């Protein structure tokens, strides 16, 4: 009789539509795990890049702009190009991967990395979510996949803090309904939403909703009383004793704080101090939390800044303005210099000049990995 049970389960799985493997996200997650293992075992890092290009093309589920299903072929090389290359917007043109360009209709406010592609936050009316003087408005969102195909989500949130993680296919935000607050996770692959109730939040000051930051399985939710950790997978909610409220983004499980006489990087879960800087100055983590820009230029050294490897505490110095450098999803620095993209290795500090980007003199430029909104 057990054969009948097995037969039913086989019939069930035979009828399943199996989605294509998220190869790029798997590699990204694998690389993080491997780095973590190396951190504890001292094994020397290995090159990964050549591997991904060696794979066969992957059929993935994707959608056109109207949300209608279609099939497209996104090879591992295309997905790797998305992870390792500059992502930026000049005016309404988005550049990503190996010079793929996509035109977006509305004003672009910020670029958010997910494992499924780039999520562009826009505003139809020119909007205020970038802090301009035009008053509150509701931002829209468009997913641009590594191959340049798009999916429009329209307006999802009010003008409020949203968060993504380059290793996860989700956009997270807090939703307020009367007295009830939930964390919402939008799966940008399918458009499905998950809601996790978060009790005990009452006062988030002048913001439309509590502030959130997504890092792995955890959404950190902040209000004026403190910070809560929400495990979106299990629904567990617990207080976080380490993060200040309101706090900056948590990237790769790490956060930064600027104190009276120093700036620090610490582990968001344990509070362990990972790196401290001698003077209080802005610190910006890479999307995966491995590297950090230290903007000491604020205090007397204009025109240069340092980039630290958080694990080893070694650093490289960079010429230019701290705030003019973005991060690729995998932790390379990049900027636009004299109309051309320049990409730099965060460890060695070596930079190479890439393709030309027209229109930077008279159009608004947005760099991936940068925060432009409150």
């Amino acid at each position, binding site marked *: *009789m*057990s054969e*009948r*049970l*097995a037969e*039913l*389960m*086989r*019939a*069930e*799985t035979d*009828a*399943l*539509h*199996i*989605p*294509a*493997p*998220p*190869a790029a*996200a*798997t*590699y990204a*997650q*694998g*690389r*993080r*795990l*491997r780095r*973590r*293992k190396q951190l504890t075992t001292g094994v020397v890092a*290995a090159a*990964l890049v*050549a*591997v*991904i290009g*060696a*794979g*066969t093309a*992957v059929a993935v*589920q994707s959608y056109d702009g109207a949300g209608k*299903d279609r099939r497209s072929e996104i090879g*591992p090389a295309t997905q790797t190009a998305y992870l390792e290359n500059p992502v930026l917007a000049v005016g309404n043109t988005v550049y990503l991967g190996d010079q793929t360009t996509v035109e977006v209709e509305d004003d672009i406010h910020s670029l958010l990395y997910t494992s499924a592609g780039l999520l562009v936050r826009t505003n139809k009316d020119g909007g205020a979510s970038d802090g301009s003087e035009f008053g509150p408005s509701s931002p829209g969102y468009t997913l641009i996949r590594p191959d340049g195909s798009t999916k429009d989500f329209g307006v999802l949130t009010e003008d409020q803090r949203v968060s993504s993680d380059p290793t996860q296919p989700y956009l997270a935000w807090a939703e307020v309904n009367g007295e009830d607050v939930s964390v919402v996770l939008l*799966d940008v692959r*399918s*458009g*499905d*939403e*998950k*809601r*996790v*109730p978060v009790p005990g939040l009452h006062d988030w000051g002048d913001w439309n909703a509590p502030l959130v930051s997504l890092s792995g399985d955890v959404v950190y939710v902040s209000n004026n009383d403190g910070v809560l950790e929400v*495990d*979106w*997978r*299990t*629904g*567990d909610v617990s207080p976080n004793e380490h993060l200040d409220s309101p706090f900056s983004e948590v990237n790769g499980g790490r956060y930064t704080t600027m104190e009276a006489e120093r700036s620090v990087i610490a582990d968001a879960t344990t509070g362990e101090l990972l790196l401290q800087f001698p003077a209080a100055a802005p610190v910006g983590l890479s999307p995966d939390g491995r590297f950090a820009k230290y903007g000491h230029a604020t205090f007397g050294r204009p025109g240069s800044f340092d980039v630290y490897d958080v694990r080893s505490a070694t650093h490289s110095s960079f010429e230019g303005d701290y705030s003019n450098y973005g991060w690729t999803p995998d932790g390379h620095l990049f900027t636009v210099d004299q109309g051309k993209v320049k990409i730099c290795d965060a460890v060695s500090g070596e930079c190479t000049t890439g393709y030309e980007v027209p229109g930077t003199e008279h159009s608004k430029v947005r760099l991936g990995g940068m925060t432009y909104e409150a």
Partner: protein
Amino acid sequence: MPRPPNEADFSEFVHASWPSLYRTAYLMLGEHALAEDLVQTSLAKTYASWRHIRELAAAPAYARKVMFNTAASWFRQRGWRNELPTLSLPERGYDVEHADRPTIIGTLRQLPPRQRAVVVLRYYEDLSVADAAAALGCTEGTVKSQTADALAKLRTLLGDAVAPIIEGHPS
């Protein structure tokens, strides 16, 4: 002579192993997004240990073991219950439930996660009691009792012809 797998092999391995792992994960978890997360996490963990795998032929079993261990660790987390505390919208674009056959996945969803996993490992993956216990990090006695409890419920839901009666565990 078998050679250790190299980095290029992993790319092919991901694509080759994904469907099979996904099917098992879906039966264990009953939800596409969770199944995808589980398999992705398991393959990422496999990648992190890739250099320590002696030969390519051993990789599928290793990845499977990682997936079972990962699922077991999820089940041990506080708050992971039969009904997940998150509310999900209906999934789109995947399988279609056929009205003319028993909906085994719907029935499995009514079991607690560990019972569901035991049923899948024993009767879909065809693991022995000892192997299922090793995969889930529990005792053989736990596997036996979970299996008995699960089958009792399945018999209620699907009928005696579907769920086997285990000797020594009448219900």
